[in-house]
């Protein structure tokens, strides 16, 4: 019976001794379950323990506490060369003294594959990453993007159960990055291999992943699909880390299972909003988080819930969108509107001081605990 999860981290702790002599928990009681065939991302700012987690899965580090389980087998102190996972390193770590062919063939040689098999499989995987004809080059004679592809081919040729990728696109320029994102995703779907992908680029994580773990200071802050993470961030930290948001202080007035009323002094009104945490009680101090693009600008002054009037403070035209700062109550709100009509006509712009009507749907106003 195949194991339910490709990789499991159970309450894993990894500590390092800093040069100053203090103990630093680079990974602090992390539990993750990564399903077979999943594109799973670890997302977090620098130093939050992403690489360390990945290295523990690969076997370069051993956890101080907890367990790493790959395909149902607890790994313990299994060395890297006995784990059915392969890694694409951030700096690629291509063997400089070998040709592209020899680099890609290395893993197969270690598995003692026959010469013929090596030639066909290396050829196939170089095709897959579109590097046909470069097999006799040395890594130094390749561009960054090509080196990246060699690193990918070198790992994928072994058909591992799990592929670990540590910011593989970090060194590439934006355009190539976007291209490679699509290619990687397509490759993953075609091969059905579980990908564990480390990045600090939120957009990359959102566009590519089936599920994302948002990490900070060695802990997992939230785990879920891109939609869950973006639309239902569980904390102010996550909402701030992924995308932008307006945060307004409020106080719970009344709460039921799905709906809740929050008194927001800064807006001088009661908002109907959606509770995120289950354990909120009436009277509690909370934060309301509203994404800028979820605030609607309307012309009709009909009585809708969460309807308010505001004054345009500032507009910034950024091509696809217009970013507005709107003063309402005693609060400045970030509001993003798509430029669906041509803004070439200056009258189609909002001008400073103009009065406008805003509506926020209750499902887009999220109530979070104050941290």
């Amino acid at each position, binding site marked *: 019976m195949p194991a339910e999860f490709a990789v499991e981290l159970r309450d894993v702790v990894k500590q390092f001794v800093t040069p100053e002599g203090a103990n630093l928990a680079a990974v602090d009681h992390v539990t993750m379950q990564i399903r077979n065939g999943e594109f799973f991302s670890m997302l977090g700012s620098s130093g939050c323990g992403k690489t360390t987690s990945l290295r523990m899965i690969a*076997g*370069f580090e051993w956890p101080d506490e907890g367990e790493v389980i790959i395909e149902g087998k607890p790994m313990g102190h299994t060395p890297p060369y006995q784990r059915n996972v392969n*890694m694409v*390193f951030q700096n690629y*770590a291509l063997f*400089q003294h070998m040709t592209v062919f020899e680099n890609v063939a*290395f893993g197969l040689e270690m598995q003692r594959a026959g010469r013929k098999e090596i030639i066909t499989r290396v050829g196939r995987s170089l095709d897959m990453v579109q590097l046909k004809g470069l097999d006799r080059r040395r890594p130094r004679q390749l561009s960054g993007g090509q080196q990246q592809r060699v690193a990918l081919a070198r790992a994928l040729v072994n058909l591992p159960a799990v592929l670990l990728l540590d910011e593989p696109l970090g060194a590439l320029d934006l355009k190539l990055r976007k291209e490679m994102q699509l290619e990687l995703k397509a490759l993953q779907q075609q091969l059905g291999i579980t990908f564990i992908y480390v990045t600090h680029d939120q957009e990359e994580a959102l566009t590519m992943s089936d599920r994302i773990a948002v990490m900070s200071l060695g802990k997992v802050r939230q785990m879920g699909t891109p939609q869950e993470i973006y639309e239902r961030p569980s904390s102010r930290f996550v909402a701030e880390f992924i995308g932008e948001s307006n945060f307004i202080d409020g106080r719970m007035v009344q709460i039921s299972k799905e709906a809740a009323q929050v008194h927001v002094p800064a807006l001088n009104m009661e908002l109907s909003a959606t509770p995120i945490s289950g354990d909120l009680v009436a009277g509690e101090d909370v934060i309301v988080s509203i994404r800028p693009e979820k605030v609607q600008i309307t012309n009709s002054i009909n009585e809708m819930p969460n309807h308010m009037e505001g004054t345009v403070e500032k507009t910034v035209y950024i091509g696809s969108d217009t970013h507005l700062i709107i003063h309402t109550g005693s609060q400045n709100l970030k509001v993003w509107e798509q430029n669906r009509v041509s803004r070439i006509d200056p009258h189609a712009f909002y001008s400073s001081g103009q009065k406008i009507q805003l509506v926020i749907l209750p499902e887009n106003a999220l109530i979070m605990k104050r941290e």
Partner: protein
Amino acid sequence: MNPYRRSPAIILASSLVYLFLYAPIFVLILYSFNASRTNIIFAGFITNFEPRPTLQAGLVTASPCGPFHWFCELSHNREVMSAARNTLTIAVISTIVSTVIGTMAALALQRYEFKLKPFTQVSLYIPIVIPEIVMGIGILTLFSQLFGVLNEALKLQADSRLTLGLGTVIVSHIAFSIPFVTLIVQARLQGFDKSFEEAAMDLGANEWTTFRRVTFPMLLPGILSGCLLAFTLSLDDFVITFFTNGPGSTTLPIYLYGLLRRIITPQVNALSTVWIAIVFVAVLLIQQSQNRKV
């Protein structure tokens, strides 16, 4: 165009440096072609070829080898040939052993953390900066004490007693070469990211295969230049060899020194010339291996 103007002062200074460095060597080489046996002034080249050398009033006027008379003489000199053989034997063995040990030391120092690690770097420099003569005396004292004790304890017979000879010279050459090899390999290791080794292990190579297929080839340029340096150091060494050699283990520098105290024929120069040529080639090879990018 190079943006730096070539200043006459710099040209002059660098010419002087080269002059001081190379003038003695040039003279030395020139005199190895000297027709004069006494070799005090340069009396011109030997221009005639004859089956037998002719000597007239201290001047060699003809020789089977022509201008290369002294080189030919040299090759017929048994003592020189035996000294050359000793020198090479010592150099080859001590180079191989010190390269292996020195490289292993560099790898170990990079990889493992231990309490006394800060002292190891200093202890590598000390044998290099210590006056060679002090090292020589130290090694000699060590050997004579050790051999004395062993000869006593094992009650060795006269012909099997431990004495100074090729073995002691080789051991002492290994000892002074190791720090050089270690320092050079360490320099190479500075730019060596451990992710290369991790990548190899990740792809299924165990520790030994990783060393053989990845670490060693990537360090090879450093190891090679350490090796060549050890080789030239051993070829050149006079002071330590002077203290540790014994009957039958005379090396070229020791032999040359012995010659100097008798007469300086152009044979001495010829020997030096050959030697300079060998060292020169070795240095060129070191340069090449250092410039080689991984």
